[in-house]
């Protein structure tokens, strides 16, 4: 079991190195970044502790991927497997648990620890017969795959919008829209196999425009219930709602283009930094979007054009 955790540690280090982060920066910056983001969340939101616990459980649940665990079950004894899963879930949940305790949210911290252990004991199976329906089947793949991976978040997001009307809290509704935008942006986080880009008989420019338009249309479909609800119940704020919706569009476009600007690799540290800065200084998106666009065209040219 010790070997397993050593291997996990090595794999994590390799991921950092591949991402272009020197290990000493990763080890020193990641705890600081974690604490800063946690602080920010608790500063900005009323129900931060609950949202924080849900986020923590979301991260922990990533370890319950059925194929991964089936593989672990095949190489470890039943006892070792259970111990290993409990330990790794506790390790993943630990930073969140400690921060909750620091914030005097003891019951939530205990609840999170129990839930992490429980998640380790649950056996999730991949259903081969049930296919989650999506409205995006005609234009695969980003939203089709993404929607199916995050379907459980949509009732929460739409529920938050409903609550925002109940408690007359416009900010909560906007928060729901922002969460939805963030979720959709993550659909573009991983670069696809080169084969799927190569198949397109378009110029890089047309390819990118099509990707962006599809992203915008699909995002609109998912956001429409929130926009409509907020526009009806918070009529005075309609301009702000629409402006924020456009800002979400801008981020979506920036992330799609950033993905192809780094293609076939994952978004690198510099691009990630620019995107991070844009979250605080939004006007830089005006320069960032054309910059990523030009880089994307350059990266896609050798894949979408014959070398001869």
């Amino acid at each position, binding site marked *: 079991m010790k070997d397993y955790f050593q291997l996990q540690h090595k794999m994590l280090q390799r991921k950092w190195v591949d991402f272009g982060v020197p290990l000493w920066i990763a080890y020193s910056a990641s705890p600081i970044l974690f604490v800063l983001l946690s602080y920010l969340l608790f500063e900005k939101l009323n129900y931060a502790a609950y949202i924080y616990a849900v986020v923590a459980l979301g991260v922990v649940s990533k370890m319950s991927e059925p194929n991964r665990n089936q593989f672990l079950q095949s190489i470890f004894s039943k006892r070792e497997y259970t111990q290993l899963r409990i330990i790794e879930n506790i390790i993943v949940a630990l930073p969140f648990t400690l921060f909750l305790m620091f914030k005097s949210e003891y019951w939530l911290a205990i609840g999170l620890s129990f839930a992490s252990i429980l998640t380790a004991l649950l056996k999730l199976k*991949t259903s*081969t*017969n049930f*296919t*989650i329906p999506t409205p995006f*089947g*005609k*234009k*695969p*793949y980003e939203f*089709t*795959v993404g929607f*199916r*991976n995050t379907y459980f978040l949509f009732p929460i997001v739409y529920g938050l919008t409903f609550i925002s009307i109940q408690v007359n809290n416009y900010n909560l509704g906007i928060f729901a829209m922002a969460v939805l935008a963030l979720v959709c942006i993550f659909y573009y986080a991983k670069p*696809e*196999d*080169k*084969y*799927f880009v*190569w*198949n*397109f*008989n378009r110029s890089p420019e047309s390819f990118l425009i099509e990707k962006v338009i599809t992203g915008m249309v699909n995002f609109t479909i998912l956001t429409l219930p929130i926009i409509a609800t907020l526009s009806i119940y918070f009529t005075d704020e309609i301009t702000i709602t629409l402006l924020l919706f456009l800002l979400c569009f801008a981020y979506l476009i920036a992330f799609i283009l950033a993905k192809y600007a780094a293609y076939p690799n994952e978004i690198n540290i510099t691009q990630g930094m620019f995107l991070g800065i844009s979250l605080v200084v939004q006007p830089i998106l005006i320069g960032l979007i054309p910059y990523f666009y030009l880089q994307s065209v350059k990266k896609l040219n*050798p*894949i*979408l*054009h*014959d*070398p*001869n």
Partner: protein
Amino acid sequence: MIRIEKLSKSYGKHNVLNSIDISFEKGKVYGVVGENGAGKTTLFKCIAGLESYSGQIHSDFEQLKDVIGFLQTEPFFFSKITGEEYIRLLTNARHVSLTNLKDKNIFDLPLNRYASTYSTGMKKKLALTAVLLQENQVFILDEPFNGVDIQSNLVITEIIKKLKSLGKTVIISSHIFSTLTETCDEIFLLKAGEIVKRVTENEYSNLEAEMKAVTIGNRIDQLELV
């Protein structure tokens, strides 16, 4: 027609393809055989434009890659995409509108199920169906018979013959020699990145015997099975 001149490919110091000169004509089926690691897949990827190379590839098409249907040895599938969506992804990419998919599902695949849950053979058949529905002019089929049941093997053989009759160019690799002799007009023997032999239909039996002799030799005796 596709004409390849002095095509070479190396990964660092390792030469995978060494000055390949071959041409492929319209309405003909070509086989490429060779041991594992001989360079077949790399050659296919170079022709498709999925790998960079030195040398020249000329063709009658404005953009060769846009008319190539490439069936990979191990097709990649996203984790939560159905068979139908996979086909749509590939046909949309080529601006081909998809109609009557149910009728075109000749391998009777469960198209509403996630493709990642398919068996190896079903995945191959799905990828082949998608490539066929792209309405390509050139088909590169890397191990199309691999992992596929015997009935589907017969269907794939007939598909290749049909493609030939439609004037398409088909390039295939296979470790099952009989499937190649049944479908190919010419077979190229690739060894350590070089085309060492070019064989036409009437010489197939010699090639098979020669390959057996070279490949097997006295290796089985070396095992000293008792």
